[in-house]
Each structure stands twice: as C-alpha cells, then as structure tokens.
C-alpha cells in the first residue's frame, strides 16, 4: 500500500494502553483491510491529530473514516474528546465509536447524550474481543459511508502501524 495514496480511509485508534492497542491491531490485522490505522495515545494527541496541530501540524488534509475512542485516558479523556468534536461544526461529522471497559450506565448515558455513534464494551473473553473489533473494522472501514470527502491522511500501513506509531512518539 502506498502511504502517499490520498483516498485511503484511515481509522484513528485512540488508546492509551499498549496491550489494548496490540490486541486491537491483531484483530484488525486479520481483516486485511485497505484502511490505514493510526494510533494515538491519549485524548490530547487525538485532538492534535484531528485539528492538524502539534506534531500533526502539516499532516495531509482529511478526516478519519471513524475514531475508535477509549474513554479513560491520561490528560484528556475520551468523553472530553467527544465533547470537543461535537462542539465543532466540521469535526462533529466524524463518526466516533467508544471502545471501553466500562459498562457503567452513567458512562453510556453521557456518551449517547453527546451523540456518539456507537458504544462498545471491550469483551473480556478473547474470541469475543477479536470478533467485536473485527466487526467494527469491517463495518466502519468498508460498509459505512462517511459524510465527507475522504482526504489522504497520514497513512499507516496496516502491517506495521505499531512501528510507525513508536516512531511518532519518539
């Protein structure tokens, strides 16, 4: 896959726990999606990416096809990321799927009140987890049609997203 290709639909994974990142990528990997997967490690990085600022200043224009958003993260929580996105005319169109450990009713209410597109509780069972992530990748990566022209984001080859991610962090 050519990283410069401009029409690749990227998935933005916002997850602070490297083990969850690894498992999520392992599940998405099984799908051999055409989508690039970009990983950021907290809400602040996610907003930097979405707003083209900080280390993502000057990245290629365009929005991810979906944001897979963890909630409990250092600095800026998933809920705060969603709040910021929904307050912005442009960003509020980007589909957001919460991928979290919590099934607390208060969390569910808060996210849905803000208009989240889906709320998925990370299954504890391994095969359930893999199946859930595969379904998400398949649906948001290939089935769902986003409301905007897909731009060429900084593309991460799905075979080596972690490596690229580590490079970004360095």
């Amino acid at each position: 896959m050519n990283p410069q290709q401009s029409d690749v639909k990227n998935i933005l994974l916002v997850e602070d726990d490297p083990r969850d990142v690894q498992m999520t990528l392992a599940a998405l990997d099984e799908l051999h999606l055409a989508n690039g997967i970009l990983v950021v490690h907290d809400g602040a990085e996610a907003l930097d990416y979405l707003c083209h600022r900080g280390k993502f200043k000057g990245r290629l224009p365009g929005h991810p096809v979906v944001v897979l958003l963890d909630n409990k993260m250092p600095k800026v929580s998933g809920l705060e990321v969603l709040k910021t996105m929904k307050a912005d005319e442009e960003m509020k169109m980007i589909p957001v799927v919460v991928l979290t450990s919590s099934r607390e009713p208060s969390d569910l209410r808060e996210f849905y009140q803000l208009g989240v597109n889906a709320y998925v509780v990370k299954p504890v069972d391994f095969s359930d987890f893999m199946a859930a992530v595969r379904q998400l990748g398949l649906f948001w990566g290939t089935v769902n049609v986003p409301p905007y022209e897909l731009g060429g984001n900084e593309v991460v080859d799905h075979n080596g997203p972690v490596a690229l991610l580590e490079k970004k962090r360095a």
Partner: protein
Amino acid sequence: MSAKSIVELATEVVPPGFPELYRTLTAMNEELTLGVLRQHELTEAAELSNIQLQLEICERKKAEAEIQRLNLELEHRVAERTAQLEEVNSQLESFSYSVSHDLRAPLRHVMGFVNLLLRDAGPTLSEKSREHLVTVSQSAKRMGDLIDDLLAFSRIGRSEIRKTEVDLNQTVREVLDDFQAEIKTRKIWVEIHPLPSVWADYALLRLVLVNLISNAVKFTGARAEPKIEIGSAPGAAGETVVFIRDNGAGFDPKYADKLFGVFQRLHSQVEFEGTGIGLANVHRIIHRHGGRIWAEGVVDGGATFYFSLPPRNGGSDEPPAK
C-alpha cells in the same frame, strides 16, 4: 320642768319606723362591707392566678424555644449525616467504577495474550504446556465472571425500587419459559399452584424468580425424576409467602446461614457450576422489599426456598445499601 326621760324624748324626735330603717341600713352596710371584703379577696385571687398564668406562658415559651432549638439541631444533624452518606455513596460509586474498568482491563490482557500465544506458538508447545495455557485462560475468564457478578450485586444494592402490582402467576410462567428447553429435554415435572399478585419491583422480583428457579433446575440435575413445585401461602400481618421446592441435591441445614452470603457456596465447582452470587442477590432484593427469605433442605433430599413480601403500604422498605 317635768323631766322627760331621754327615751321619751328620743321616741318623740325619732319618727316611727326608724328602728326598722336603722336595722335595714345597718344590715346593708354590713353586707356592703362584706362585699367589698370579698371583692378584695377575689381581686387577690385573680392577681395570683394571673401571675401563675404568666409564669406558665413564660415556661411554655421557653419550652417552645427549646423545641425549636432541638428541631434545628436535628435538621442540622440530618443534613450532616446526609452529606456523609452522600460522600460514602459517591465513594462507593467510584469504587465500583474502578472495579468495572481497572480490574477488567488486565484480565482482558491476560486472556488476550495467552490466546495470542496459543494461536501463534500452540503447535510448537507440548500437550501439557498447551493445557496450562488453557487453564490460565479459564481462570482469567472465571475472575471476569466474578467481577461482573460483584458489580451486578452492588448495582442491585444501589438501584431505586419502583413497586407496582406484579402478577406472580404470569411472572413465574414468563421465567419458566426461559428454561423451557432444559425442562423439556430433562423432563422436569413442574407444578405451579395458583399464585397471588404482590406489590414489588417487577424487574427485581423477576431476578429473584430467575435465580431461585434456575437453582432448582440446576440442583435437580442428577435426578431421574426431577420435580419443581412453586406455590404460596398467606403469612403473618398480611404478607405473602412464596415457596420454590425441588427434589434436587438439597443442602446440609447446618450450613443454612451460609446460603445467602456473597460468593458462599455449599457445593463444589465440579458438582454444580456457579459463582455463588445468585442467592446473595435474592437475599438483598427481598430484604430491600421489607421481606424475609429462608430455606429448608436435606442433603440429597431437595430444598425449599421461601420468601415473604409485605402487603401494599405494609412493612418498611429498606433504603439503598449505604
């Protein structure tokens, strides 16, 4: 001069009838004096009772002020206590939140990476090593079940109770429907006596029935002719007593007090699967309805679980667990 006696003179001067008049006047005077005296007495008495009244009013005012002060103090103490309880409650909330999120994540990782390892390196491992990895994975899964159960238990304690009229006949049949497949294949004989309507939270009462009936189904697993009987009887003070009887494994009545504890089990995991949260949930729900729960059993002689529910407007509901 012929001297007239004074008496004669007086008789001449004083007109006739005077003595009567004099007597009358004297009598009136006396009465008047007496009257004045009585008036004085009355005035004194009135003044005395007036003073007493004023004293009484004074005391009553003091008492009223005291009551007001006590009331204020009470209100203050209630407000203080409420604030403390709210604080404890919010601590509990964040505790269960942390259990739900922070304990589940590492478990997911244990299971995830063991399975990734099995997937990637499984073929190169010995049979025994693969079994060990499966055990790790199963234990992690069991811990996940325990955490989920504990969370559900804490939620039952915190949830608000919304009571309505619940038709037990219908609710019991609904619950039995969920077990229909097993009832059919194992040919469980189910006998339902006519049941009354009760005043309870529908969802929670349903949970009670699901737990008790699923236990009856589970613990009759070894019986050739499994039997479950559900009925009710009026209890003391207008309460309703419901019983669920089975001819299953039963229990040793010596340990009856352990039946309703969290994660307490009277059977091994090998005999009968379970985490030991079901009856703790049942106990908590019935307790919060202001009812009672108890059980009778004999080892290998079946068990009967009873619960009572107070009548509408009867019995006091327990507030959510603190």
